[in-house]
């Protein structure tokens, strides 16, 4: 069913080919259950991470989507654009996959956990997409080079999961079926 999800300053409109599309990190299961896994190791705090969106498309299969909008605060996020952001998405994906398995083993009703874990089975498409906006992406060729490099890192970090990964931005053709991304008012403006 068509679903619109607002993340930061962008609207992700999933069309009717999407069986499921929801903001996973806003779910009670993540906020109240999965997040309980946290603690300190060697005095470094660790906690459960989560991707922004989980989607299930009739044809394309399962999607884990993370949206990052660095426009307007480029300097603070510069190191993340240069590779760290891909590692962050990979870790969020790892934790979300683990959490889905946990959800399927519990009486969770707020999302179709059994259907989602079934979509993770071998032979089925699973895509992990980082949707990234950055002030430096105005030059499309340079943007593509950076996106390609970021996808190289993402692909490498998730090779264990046997998924397709890709990094997209609004300046390049959208490769996802039946999904429209638009800017909300204030998108790209410096944050106060």
């Amino acid at each position, binding site marked *: 069913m068509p679903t619109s999800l607002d993340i930061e300053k962008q609207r992700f409109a999933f069309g009717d080919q999407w069986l499921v599309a929801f903001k996973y990190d806003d779910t009670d299961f993540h906020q109240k259950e999965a997040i309980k896994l946290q603690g300190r190791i060697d005095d470094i705090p660790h906690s459960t991470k989560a991707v922004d969106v989980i989607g299930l*498309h009739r*044809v*394309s*299969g399962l999607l884990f989507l993370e949206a990052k909008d660095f426009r307007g605060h480029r300097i603070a996020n510069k190191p993340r654009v240069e590779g760290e952001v891909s590692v962050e998405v990979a870790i969020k994906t790892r934790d979300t996959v683990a959490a889905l398995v946990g959800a399927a083993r519990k009486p969770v009703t707020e999302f179709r956990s059994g259907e989602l874990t079934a979509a993770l089975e071998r032979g*089925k*498409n699973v*895509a992990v997409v980082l949707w990234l906006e950055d002030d430096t992406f105005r*030059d*499309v*060729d*340079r943007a*593509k*080079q950076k*996106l*390609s490099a970021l*996808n190289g890192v993402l692909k490498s970090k998730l090779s264990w999961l046997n998924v*397709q990964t*890709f990094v997209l931005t609004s300046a*390049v*053709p959208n*490769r*996802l*079926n039946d999904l429209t991304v638009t800017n909300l008012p204030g998108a790209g403006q410096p944050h106060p």
Partner: protein
Amino acid sequence: MNSKNTSEPGGAAILKSASIKKFSLFSNETLEFSSGLNVFIGKNGCGKSHLIKLLYTLVKECGNAPGNGSALEAEKLENRLASKLAGVFRPEGDRIGRLVQRKTGRGSAEVSATFSNGKKCGFTLSTLDKISGSKGNVGTLNEAAFLPSREVLALFEGFIAAYKKRELSFDETYYDLCVALSANQLRGRREEMLDELVRPLETEIRGKVSLEGGRFYVTGSDGSIEAHLLSEGWRKLASLAQLIINGTLTRNGFLFWDEPEANLNPRMVVQLSETLLRLAKQGIQIFVVSHDYLLTTRLSLASEYPDAIPEDQRCPVKFFGLVRRGSDEKGVSVSSGSKLADLQDNPILAEYAALYDYEGGLFEKTQSRN
């Protein structure tokens, strides 16, 4: 930096600009060079190697060698240029007129270089191989080294003698490089600046370079290893170290390097980019042809963030993008700027963008089936 510098009060001149008309693929281009690092990019067949060979010929023949005063004035510049062009470009039958831009009928090329002391040197070359050189003397020019894309350390043994006997079909840049490599290393304690340039290279190749009995060796904690047994990438860096240690590369000297990245792994390319910047910082004027994304981007970042990079790597950098132009694509046009992004056409970046598009297309196909 070494004894050659101190013997030249006022310093030798470096290359400021070049005007090239109807030579090779260049119809009419005037290029203003950086005193530091000059990087040439473009697709294959755009004339990049021809360009740096031409510049090498000019700086090699237009000036007096350091300390020689006007000893070479008596020798005709035309003869020197003609011989060098024939040796460096190796046209069929030494017919240097073949270097004139190909068009129907006769024509002539005009090439002129302007040096930092304001003096000029150049030549006019006809399709009938007739060359005439400009009058006057540009004064002292320091050594110029040309590193071809193939490394020569493994070829070195016996190369000079065989080349002189015309037993080899290599162009003259290989011979010149072997001669330069054969120079004795500077004696005594290495100057601090020299040491700073060479030490990272020696760390990378895990030893010090030496020439013994006509063969190069790298001697480190594992003992002496002959150059032949080293990887080609290491041999390249060893060649560069030798040229620094023996004083070939000196302040106001010239380094021309055709595709230095060939056979280097990415980590060595990073090392190379830092070494090039340090050499340029020490006053060596460098001309590099590259197809490598990592190398060119690292050099561009040095230009984009001059205050953020280490002090010993801060030097002027200029990029030149060569593009085939016209419906027949028989000529090239050149754009330039201090950053890669300044170039009108960047084929390296374009290929990366195309790679992204290609992968995007493949990803999209997987989204259409399950």
